[in-house]
C-alpha cells in the first residue's frame, strides 16, 4: 500500500531548512517586482530619461523600499539579482557599472531600513511602530544612498560627464517616483476602506 506522501525530490529540499526556502520565494518575488517595475517605468516615462539609467520619475525606487520593508534582506538580494538582469541593457560596455550598480540599487533601501528602523523602532520584525514620518525618512535616505552610490560608481568608472547634475536628477527622480507611488498606494487603500465600509453599511 502506497500512501500519497511528499515526493522524494521535495523531501530532499528539507536539507535547505536552515536557509528557510520561503526566503528564496521572497527573493524571486522581489526580483520579479524589480524587473517588472523597471520595465513599466521605462515604458511610461521614457521621455523623462536625462541620461542612461537616470530618469526624472523613477517609481521603481518606491517598489524597492516597500519590497525591502516587507521581505527584508532576501528582498534586497532579489532586487540585486534583478539589477544584474537589467544592467547589461542600461550600461552597455561598462563593466564596473554592470557589476556594482545592482548592489547599490538592491542594498541602498536595505541599508536605509537598517539605519532608520534601528534608530526609531529598534527594528522589530513586525514593523509595528513604523510611522508615516519614518516611512518618508526611509524613502529619503534610501534615495540619497542610491543616487550617491550610483554617482560615485559613475565617477570611478569615468561614465557620464556632468556628475553633480546627474546626482540631482537621480535624487529627484528617486524621491519623486517613490513619493508618487506611496501616495498612490495611500489613495488606493483609502478608496478600498471606503468601499468596504459602504458594503458593510449596505
Amino acid at each position, binding site marked *: 500500500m502506497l500512501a500519497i*506522501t511528499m515526493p522524494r525530490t521535495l523531501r530532499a529540499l528539507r536539507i535547505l531548512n536552515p536557509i*528557510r526556502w520561503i526566503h528564496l520565494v521572497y527573493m524571486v518575488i522581489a526580483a520579479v517586482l524589480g524587473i517588472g517595475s523597471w520595465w513599466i517605468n521605462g515604458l511610461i516615462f521614457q521621455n523623462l530619461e536625462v541620461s542612461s539609467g537616470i530618469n526624472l520619475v523613477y517609481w521603481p525606487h518606491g517598489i524597492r523600499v516597500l519590497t525591502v520593508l516587507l521581505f527584508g534582506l532576501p528582498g534586497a538580494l532579489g532586487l540585486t539579482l534583478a539589477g544584474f538582469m537589467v544592467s547589461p541593457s542600461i550600461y552597455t560596455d561598462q563593466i564596473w557599472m554592470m557589476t556594482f550598480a545592482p548592489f547599490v540599487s538592491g542594498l541602498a533601501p536595505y541599508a536605509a531600513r537598517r539605519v532608520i528602523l534601528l534608530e526609531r523602532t529598534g527594528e522589530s520584525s513586525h514593523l*509595528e511602530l513604523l*510611522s508615516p514620518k519614518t516611512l518618508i525618512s526611509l524613502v529619503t535616505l534610501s534615495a540619497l544612498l542610491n543616487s550617491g552610490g550610483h554617482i560615485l560608481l559613475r565617477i570611478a568608472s569615468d561614465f557620464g560627464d556632468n556628475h553633480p547634475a546627474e546626482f540631482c536628477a537621480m535624487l529627484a527622480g528617486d524621491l519623486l517616483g517613490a513619493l508618487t507611488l506611496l501616495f498612490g498606494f495611500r489613495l488606493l487603500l483609502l478608496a478600498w476602506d471606503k468601499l468596504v465600509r459602504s458594503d458593510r453599511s449596505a
Partner: protein
Amino acid sequence: MYDLTAQPSRNIIRPIMSKDTKTELLSLYFRFSALTDSLKGLYGGAELTPDIEALLQVLCAHWHAGSPLSVRQVMQFERLGSSATIFKRLKRLRQMDLVMLLEAPDDPRKRQIVPTTRALDYFSSQALAIRAASA
C-alpha cells in the same frame, strides 16, 4: 496504485510548511499590515476618528494637569473601550505622530504618554476655531 483512503494532506503539508515558515508568513502579514497602516497615515490621510480623538483628549488633559498617564493607566479607562481597543488606538496615535512615550523622571521603568507638538498644534487650531465661532 495510490491509496486515496490514507490521510494524505498531513503528510504532504507538514514537511513543506514547517513551523518556521508559518511564523515567517505570520510576520510577513504583520509587516504588511503595519505598512498599510503607515501608508494610510501619510500626510493628509490621517483620519482622527471621534474614538481616537476622545483618547487623545484624555491623554492631553492629564498631561496638561501635570500628571501624564502611563500606558498601563490609560488602558484601565473602561469608558474609552477595552484595554485591547485602547492599546490599538494608542498605537494609531503614535503612528500619526500625535503622542510619544517618555521615561518618567522618577522611575525610568515607567513610560508616560506625552503629546507631540503636532497634537498641541491640533488643539491650538481647535481653540482658534472655537474662538472664531463664538466671536
